[in-house]
């Protein structure tokens, strides 16, 4: 199936009835993994990510220990039943890359220097995948880190933006992800206004990127308000 064969925009609306710059419905929950130090579930439409945080805890084998500060380990994993064709379980090239991308998106906000020789482990499980899984995972991981009491500079919020046909869109779902002209995964520190992840696939011109950045920042701020809301609700 060639790109653009499916009509993704009908009368200015997307296949799921959303406007170009509209987020899917978002649900967030804290404390879904009771044995973890902190955990969260985030749902973007049909995409569900569960994140669990353990630590700071002792790091073994010993050669991995860093005297200058702790290390962050992230494992992103898709459940075999998360996609329509069964995904063979276990790490593959894609999930190893995404694990690293999530780690790099979270590392700048965590005060790792306070925990020399220790590790913080983040596990991101995708239970249901319908596009934008890595940004959903980042949102869940950030909530889980906060509820585990990890010292952080700021929260991290993330969303995806892209382009179908000539239209710039926000929060891609599965079909849009596979058939778009371009898509960007974007993570952002909402109160510091700093970008921690910017990953693009496809072709865009400078003006489009500038516009998408604005759209993504606004969306991230909305997501941040939701994160605030769910935490306030839990500890009220």
């Amino acid at each position, binding site marked *: 199936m060639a790109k653009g064969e499916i009509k993704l925009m009908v009368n200015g609306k997307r296949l799921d009835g959303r406007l170009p710059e509209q987020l899917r419905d978002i649900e967030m929950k804290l404390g879904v993994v009771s044995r973890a130090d902190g955990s969260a579930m985030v749902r973007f439409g049909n995409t569900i990510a569960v994140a669990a945080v353990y630590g*700071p805890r*002792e790091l073994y084998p010993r050669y991995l220990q860093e005297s200058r500060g702790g290390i962050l380990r992230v494992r992103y994993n898709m459940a075999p039943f998360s996609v329509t064709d069964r995904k063979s379980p276990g790490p593959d090239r894609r999930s190893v890359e995404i694990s690293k991308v999530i780690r790099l998106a979270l590392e700048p906000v965590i005060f790792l220097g306070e925990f020399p020789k220790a590790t913080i482990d983040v596990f991101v499980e995708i239970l249901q995948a319908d596009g934008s899984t890595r940004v959903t995972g980042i949102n869940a991981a950030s909530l889980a880190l906060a509820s*585990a*009491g990890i010292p952080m500079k700021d*929260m991290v919020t993330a969303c995806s933006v892209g382009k179908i046909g000539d239209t710039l869109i926000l929060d891609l779902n599965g079909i849009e992800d596979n058939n778009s002209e371009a898509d960007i995964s974007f993570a952002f520190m909402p109160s510091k206004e700093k970008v921690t992840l910017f990953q693009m696939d496809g072709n865009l011109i400078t003006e489009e990127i500038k516009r998408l950045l604005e759209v993504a920042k606004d969306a991230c701020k909305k997501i941040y308000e939701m994160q605030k809301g769910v935490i306030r609700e839990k*500890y009220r």
Partner: protein
Amino acid sequence: MNEKREIVLPGELIGEKLGRKVGFGAYFEGERVFAKVLGIPRVEENEISVIPFAGVYIPRIGDKIIGIISSVEVSGWMVDINSPYAAFLPLSEGVREFVDTSRTDISGFFDAGDVIFCTVSKVTKNKTIQVSMRDIGNKKLYGGVIVKVSPNKIPRIIGRAGSMISIIKERTKCEVYTGRNGVVWLKGENKAKAIAAILTVEKESHTVGLTEKIEKLLSE
């Protein structure tokens, strides 16, 4: 009964520095102070800090903690202190008398599995931890049971000037030791009741009127 309290997320602005000390759970950029952890902000006359809701125990000098001896070394003991870092108890800090290590088996003083009430005596920058038995009140704890709670809830379990813990001790006639590292040691006949009370405090630490609730629970 829940009072509305202010809660800050990491990265939220707490206030201006104005020459004050930036304490636990906060950091500053220029003159502005931000929260570092999720918790309740405390802005006082000379210090700004955040009381966290969660987190592991990070040792600080002077903390009274409960440790479990994990192994016996040549001239000291390794102690598990419920933290990402293990602590070392040197022979000289553990025993008052002179001990000739070439002739004595020091497991006679403390052996693996023993529970000790000790003080954090040394913390280096890269978190090498040393504990000591030299302080007043430090001792080996015989028998009893151990309950682990979140280290951030220990001040609530102790209560203002020890009010909560003294109620628990008095009503259950239990011997109770609380360590800053989130380990509570209990001994006595009514320990089941005391444990229930402690776990209730941990679970409902953020609610108002907890002391009355615990008194009620214990008088049942």
